């Protein structure tokens, strides 16, 4: 007999943790399922251990990161059940099939054992992932995402000890460059692929948007000064390509119309972040294409309600807005969940949420500035260079996608059948939006009309043995933390 929780929250990042705290304040019974061993999400990964016992990493990662410890503390104390090291591989709506009082069935995997759990309400706080960067040589060992370098610093106190090259666009480039410098890592150069200053000049809406959050703007300028003070070479570049035989050896690019190259034993790439939508896509709720953020996200209202009543989304998984906003959105979704569960009436919900909605509006205004300033280049969004690998798992390149397009292939799902693109272990996490963008461009239609690969559960690796054991309900896995 499987247990039913009032509210299941998927993800213990800023949105999931603050949703848990806010829901508990309204007397909701909460279970938080999270893939990591400790709460924090990607942004506050390992923050408890770092803040309490690793002064080197704590200093390098900075004040904004350490501030996450306060939210983790509030989360630990809020009375939510926390199930760490737990992957959620499906959110299924079963209302129409059987039990209206527990309409959601969550497929989970914990300590090598898969099972289903039931919830009356679900908040998916799945967070963000870095956009794939399809440039020549990007699959070489020694080429990682900027976020990966940051993850190594947070989780293991590891910093590059060879002169790394950082290349790309987006706030995280500045954040991580300054963190690595503070940790004493040698940086060979920081290469900017999006020429943010030129983009801001071309778009009149950018500057007023920037002023919506002057504090954030000042922070960005401080990171730039930090790079300048450290004497790191910073260049606006185009035509970025990586070279090497069994691992990356050099970076090639054009700067002011001239070709250049530099040795690079480690290259860190970044072209912004996009919502992690595999779990919500597999839940078959409606998704929309966000033109400004060049990404799919779940369609949702101002509370985080999706097309499936009782399934809510919050945080960057619902649209990229950053960690601070994710905390606010988590509270908003929790208030709506509390209302849906009959804990508070709509007037109380509205009154409690009013300042949060105002704060989110400010964040969205500022986000427009970031979306304009750091918009990835066309060559990253819709690569057209023949032979360039798009699907890393199955090694399907642009030419092959073009070939099936020329033969009348209808869309990304049919392209899977023809080429195997999107059918490898990552399930299209890396190539999904790229393939949709290529189809939209060649078919001269919108990416939303083209759509995303159909994503089916399980969205996390599950062995046949684990699947076969699903029928056994067995004892409830003990939640280790929380009251």
């Amino acid at each position: 007999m499987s247990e039913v929780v009032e509210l299941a929250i998927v993800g213990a990042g800023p949105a999931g943790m603050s949703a848990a705290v806010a829901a508990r304040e309204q007397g909701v019974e909460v279970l938080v399922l999270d893939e990591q061993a400790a709460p924090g999400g990607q942004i506050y990964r390992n923050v408890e251990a770092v803040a309490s016992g690793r002064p080197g990493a704590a200093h390098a990662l900075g004040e904004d990161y350490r501030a996450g410890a306060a939210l983790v503390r509030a989360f630990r104390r809020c009375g939510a059940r926390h199930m760490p090291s737990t992957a959620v591989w499906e959110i299924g709506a079963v209302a129409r099939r059987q039990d209206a009082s527990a309409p959601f069935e969550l497929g989970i995997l914990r300590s090598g054992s898969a099972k289903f759990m039931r919830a009356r309400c679900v908040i998916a706080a799945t967070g963000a992932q870095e956009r794939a960067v399809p440039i020549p040589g990007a699959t070489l060992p020694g080429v990682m995402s900027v976020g990966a370098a940051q993850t190594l610093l947070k989780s293991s106190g590891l910093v590059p000890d060879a002169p790394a090259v950082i290349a790309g666009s987006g706030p995280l480039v500045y954040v991580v460059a300054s963190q690595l410098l503070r940790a004493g890592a040698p940086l060979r150069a920081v290469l900017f692929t999006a020429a943010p200053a030129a983009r801001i000049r071309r778009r009149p809406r950018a500057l007023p948007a920037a002023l919506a959050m002057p504090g954030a703007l000042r922070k960005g300028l401080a990171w730039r000064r930090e790079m300048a003070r450290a004497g790191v070479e910073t260049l606006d570049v185009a035509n970025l390509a990586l070279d090497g035989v069994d691992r990356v050896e050099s970076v090639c690019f054009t700067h002011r119309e001239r070709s250049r190259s530099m040795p690079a034993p480690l290259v860190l790439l970044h072209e912004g972040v996009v919502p992690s939508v595999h779990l919500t896509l597999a839940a078959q709720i409606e998704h929309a294409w966000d033109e400004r953020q060049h990404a799919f996200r779940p369609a949702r209202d101002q509370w985080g309600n999706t097309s499936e009543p009782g399934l809510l989304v919050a945080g960057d998984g619902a649209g990229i807005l950053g960690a601070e906003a994710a905390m606010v959105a988590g509270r908003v979704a929790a208030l709506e969940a509390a209302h849906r569960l009959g804990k508070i009436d709509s007037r109380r919900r509205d009154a409690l949420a009013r300042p949060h909605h105002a704060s989110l509006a400010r964040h969205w205004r500022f986000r427009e500035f970031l979306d304009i300033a750091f918009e990835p280049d066309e060559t990253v969004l819709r690569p057209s260079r023949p032979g360039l690998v798009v699907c890393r798992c199955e090694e399907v390149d642009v030419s092959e996608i073009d070939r099936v397009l020329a033969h009348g292939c209808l869309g990304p799902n049919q392209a899977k059948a023809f080429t195997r693109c999107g059918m490898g272990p990552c399930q299209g996490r890396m190539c999904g939006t790229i393939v949709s963008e290529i189809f939209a461009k060649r078919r001269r239609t919108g990416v939303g009309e083209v759509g995303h690969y159909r994503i089916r559960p399980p969205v996390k690796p599950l062995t046949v043995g684990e699947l076969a054991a699903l029928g056994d309900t067995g004892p409830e896995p003990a939640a280790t933390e929380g009251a």
Partner: protein
Amino acid sequence: MFRRLPDPAGRIPFDFEGEPFEARAGDSVAAALLANRVLTFRTTPVSGAPRGPWCLIGNCHECLVEIDGEPNRQACMVEVRAGMRVRRQRGARVVPD
């Protein structure tokens, strides 16, 4: 490639491709390999090209290795344990008997 900031975590012995390696408590298998200057974690099933981790947060599946005989494990999502036997995954995974 990477060095450690001062870290109080305990040391953990594990084995990579039959060689003794050292990790720190709390490392993922991927972090432990990178700390030991391993960049190539696998070769691809299609062309045999060398690959290493890209995202380290469980999305890209580029860091697949064999752990204690079990193939297709995401090195970035598994915490290293004392005595673990880790091998590169060469080409397509082999399903154990």
